[in-house]
């Protein structure tokens, strides 16, 4: 199947499930807690998952983010610097041809966006990207 980015976006939105968490003081520990809740404390290894995000957000209120991991049954996105880090979870059935999703997220400030994939064999994979949210400035 030849999926355009637009179709992937539409599909992604269709299977999007927003997660919410009760407020805790430190955002970083909020992210750790959310990841632990997903993995049950299992080891998470880097690689095997692609996370595409802009280096510098053109608009912090709507930052395009794309994830894909061949063999994933579930991919969750976390914005580590947001008051509520859990952004979205994409779930993939056994017949899903492409294990990828994209969405746009609001980022409160410069921070790391983290993607965790749960694989078919039960292992967990991780990727992260720093997205800078800037007040803008002066071009050369």
């Amino acid at each position, binding site marked *: 199947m030849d999926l*355009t*980015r637009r179709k992937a976006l539409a599909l992604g939105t269709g299977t999007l499930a927003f997660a919410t968490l009760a407020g805790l003081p430190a955002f970083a520990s909020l992210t750790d807690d959310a990841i632990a809740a997903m993995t049950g404390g299992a080891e998470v290894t880097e690689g095997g998952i692609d996370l595409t995000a802009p280096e510098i957000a*053109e608009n912090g209120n709507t930052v395009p983010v794309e994830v894909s991991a061949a063999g994933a049954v579930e991919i969750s996105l976390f914005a580590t610097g947001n008051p509520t880090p859990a952004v979205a979870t994409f779930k993939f059935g056994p017949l899903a041809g492409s294990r990828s999703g994209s969405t746009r997220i609001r980022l409160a400030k410069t921070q790391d966006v983290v993607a965790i994939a749960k694989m078919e064999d039960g292992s967990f994979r991780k990727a992260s990207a720093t997205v800078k949210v800037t*007040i*803008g400035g*002066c*071009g*050369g």
Partner: protein
Amino acid sequence: MISRRDFLQTSMAAAALYGASGFGNWARVAAQQSLTQDKLLEFDTFGNVSLIHVTDIHAQLKPIYFREPSVNIGVGGNKGAVPHVTGADFRKLYGIDDGSPSAYALSHSDFSSLAQAYGRVGGLDRVSTVINSIRAARPDALLLDGGDTWHGSYTCHQTAGQDMVNVMNALKPDAMTFHWEFTLGSERVNEIVEGLPFAALGQNIFDAEWDEPTELFPPYKFFESGGVKVAVIGQAFPYMPIANPGWMFPEYSFGIRDERMQEMVDEVRAQGAELVVCLSHNGFDVDKQMAGIVTGIDVILSGHTHDALPEPVLVGETIIVASGSNGKFVSRVDLDVRNGRMMGFRHKLIPIFSDVITPDPEVAQLIDDQRAPYMDALSEVIGQTADDQTLYRRGNFNGTWDDLICDALISERDADIALSPGVRWGPSILPGQDITREDIWNVTSMSYGEAYRTEMTGEFLHVVLEDVADNLFNPDPYYQQGGDMVRVGGLGYRIDVTKPQGSRITEMTLLKTGEIIDPSKTYQVAGWASVNEGTEGPKIWDVVEAHIAKQGTISLDPNNSVKVVGA
């Protein structure tokens, strides 16, 4: 078997020698009359493909003076690496003698006295002569324009870029990429691009709504040159909606998008490209980083950061060519492409000494035609520089042009503190020279030139300085936007370039009282070139003109208000 990398390194050595023959032996030349056009254009045609690169012209149709920076700090892996080498260190690195034409063209030392001896640089009629000469030796040479072309002068502003479009069309480029062009507004950019007789390229120019490629700006174009199938991939300035007002072109999104760059390189190679050229407006350090990540690009023609390098920089198997700004240089790159691979190159950065290179009469006439309706306004003398006062802009922290602009903002807008954007365009003015209206517009003209006056808390001022400093000194080039530090008037500070964002800037001081800036106190701040929609105020060129007219003769106090640590 000799690898391609060996070939390229041999070429680098040859280029260095050739560069020396093009630059070093001018050391014995004492005055410009010993320089000749033949000497400047001397080039032993090599291989089978020629590229001609111009970039960041900023609408400078006529010859100008342009002082290169004395401060250009590299951070992280680029500390001490070109283009972050200036002055005597730069001349030593490239074997350039003090006082030579190359020293005048490429470094800042003795600028005003060398400028008196060697004269103005640039002028698109002279650039045309150089292009014609290269085309005489290699008729199917490709002329590639790296962008920042339709911005930067009085006539460009009044004609919304049409003067530059008319003159550049006469030079017959083969392709172009973009940055400041978009500040004309997307409607105007679309209108011009739809009528361009050459390719408008940008693999990273996307539709903002759908995050998809646009039809108006294709990623690449194929050319046949010297029997070689050449693919030119465009890379526009990645951070346009951040560094410039995104509300003026809301339909477009940019970014580095190096994954897509790799896809495009693979795609053109699969279609039979024997030579892959990236026409880039990334800025030099970003191009260096991208060259280490994306494989299969032979040549990056680099723009945006206005660096002029007498030799390409080799990253892996990619050569990166930097061709200066404001029409001051043309780069010629000859390439030997065999069996679908670039096996060697010869390169020359040609400085456009306007008194040495004969203008192309047709282009000279065309330039004068563009300017004719505006000559009265352009040529009006507003003031003069004092006998020991040069006005220049380039440098990481300040330049005398921006010192003057900040003085104008403080006095004309009755402010405590002035902010002036750290752009890198704008020609220089020599001591004892008339300052015309054209000169003022050359350093201020833009489509969002409102000079605002607002209240800022000390805390917010700190956030602003930290934010801009991180655009310049983030150790990862992909997080740098190019440009220089925001210029400040009425304010002093200390900066440690090695620190992370939030802790680089300390000791912020209000100069008029000597007091430390209080985070909770409010200050009157004047500035210009805000990226925010709805900014109000008089135009900056009117503010500067009023100030210069009142001063008559311009003489500035030395600016020692920024203390730099960690360079």
